[in-house]
C-alpha cells in the first residue's frame, strides 16, 4: 500500500464567511416554482441559547427517485428527472440565526447491507467558532415507518433521535440545530 499523504487540517470559516461563500441561488436546491417544493427553515443556537448569526448550512441529498447524478453511485450516475434539481443547498444564517433551503423530499436509498435508508438530507454546519464543519442529518416526520427502519437513526440513542427529525411547518419543515445544551443535535463523524 502506498504511503498516505497527510490531509489538510480544517479551520474555521471565521466571521466573514458571507463574503466568500454567499451564492445568490444558494438556498435553492430546486428552483422556485418546482412542483412539490417546500422550505426547510431553522435556527442555529449555541450552548447559551444565543442565535448563531455567523454560520452557514449546506445540504446534500438524493433526488426524489433516490438517485445521485454522480459517477460513484454504483447504480450509475443519472441526471435527475426533476428539472433544475441540484441536490445541493447553501444558506448562511441571518441576523436571527436562521437559515432556509427550498427543496423536495429525496427518495429512500438502498443500504449496502441490504436495508433501506429513510429519506434524509445530509447537512454540514460551518461557522465562526467551529474549527471543523459539523455533520448532521435531517429526517422527515411524515415517514414514521421508514424512519423506524433507518440504520443511522437506529444507531442513535432513542432519547437523542428526535434531534434529527424535522417538524411540520406552514410552508414545509422546521429543523433547529442546537450546537450545545440539553437538546444538543446529534452530530456525526463521517
Amino acid at each position, binding site marked *: 500500500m502506498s504511503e498516505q499523504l497527510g490531509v489538510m487540517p480544517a479551520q474555521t470559516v471565521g466571521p466573514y464567511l458571507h463574503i466568500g461563500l454567499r451564492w445568490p441561488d444558494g438556498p435553492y436546491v430546486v428552483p422556485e416554482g418546482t412542483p412539490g417544493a417546500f422550505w426547510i427553515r431553522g435556527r442555529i443556537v449555541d450552548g447559551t441559547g444565543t442565535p448563531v448569526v455567523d454560520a452557514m448550512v449546506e445540504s446534500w441529498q438524493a433526488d426524489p427517485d433516490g438517485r445521485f447524478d454522480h459517477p460513484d453511485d454504483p447504480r450509475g450516475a443519472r441526471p435527475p428527472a426533476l428539472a433544475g434539481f441540484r441536490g445541493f443547498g447553501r444558506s448562511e444564517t441571518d441576523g436571527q440565526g436562521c437559515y432556509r433551503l427550498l427543496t423536495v423530499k429525496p427518495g429512500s436509498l438502498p443500504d449496502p447491507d441490504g436495508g433501506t435508508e429513510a429519506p434524509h438530507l445530509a447537512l454540514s454546519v460551518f461557522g465562526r467558532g467551529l474549527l471543523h464543519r459539523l455533520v448532521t442529518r435531517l429526517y422527515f416526520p411524515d415517514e414514521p415507518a421508514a424512519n423506524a427502519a433507518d440504520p443511522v437513526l437506529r444507531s442513535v440513542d432513542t432519547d437523542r433521535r428526535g434531534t434529527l427529525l424535522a417538524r411540520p411547518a406552514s410552508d414545509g419543515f422546521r429543523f433547529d440545530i442546537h450546537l450545545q445544551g440539553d437538546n444538543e443535535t446529534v452530530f456525526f*463523524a463521517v
Partner: protein
Amino acid sequence: MTTQDTRADGGLVLPRYRRDDVDAHPPLLSPGYKSTVARAPRHPLIYLPQRLTEITGPLLGEGRLGALDHDLTRQHDGEPQGQRIIVHGRVRDGDGRPVPRTLVEIWQANAAGRYRDARDTWPAPLDPHFEGVGRALTDDQGRYQFITVQPGAYPWRNHDNAWRPAHIHFSLFGRAFTQRLVTQMYFPGDPLFFQDPIFNSVRDPKARDRMIARYDHATTAPEWALAYEFDIVLRGRESTPFEDEDDDE
C-alpha cells in the same frame, strides 16, 4: 458481519473514504479560541458508516465561474493596493491522486487587513478596488491558480492584543460529501503564529505546517508578482471497498 457474497442486490459496493486521524483536524473544543466554548458540541460525534449520501457529493462549478473570478486584482476598474501574489497549487487525495474539476472558493482581507464586510469595523482602510473573493475550478491534474494581493494581519478580540496572522480562507468540495473541507492558508515565517489560537488549534506540528504556503520563486512573474504554492490534500479512499464496516455507534 455482512459479506460481499451475501448481499441480496449483488452489486451495491461503495467506495469508502479513510477516516481522518484523531490529530488531523483541530479539536472542536479549543478553549484558547474562545468562540469554541459555547459552540463546540459536548456529546462525542457518532460514528456514521459511509453510504450513498456520503460517498457522493455536488460536482458544481462549471457553470458558476466568471472569466475573472480567479483574478482578484482585475475585478474592478482600478487595481487594488498591495503586493501582487500568485497563489497556486494542486488538490490531491491522500493517495496522491489529483482531484480534478473541483470548485475552490477563497476569501480574504485586503492589504490593510480589512474585510469588505459590514461586520468588520476596525479602522483600517477599505480598498474600493478589492473585493477579496475568488473562485476557480481545478484542471484535470487538480491544479488551480489565483492572482490576488498579500492580505494584511488584523486585530480581533479573542485575547489581549490578539492579531490574526495573514491568511486566505479556502473552501473545497472534493468529489464526495466526505471530502468537503474549509481551511486557511498562512504565509511562511509569520511572526504572529505564536499567539494565534486558530492556527495553533491544530495540535500536530506537521499538520500545522501543511497550512503554511511555500514561497515559490520559480512561479513569480518578473517585475510583476511574487508567488506562493499551496498544495491541498483531501481524504483518500480505502484500498479495499469490500471490507465490512461496523455500523454500531
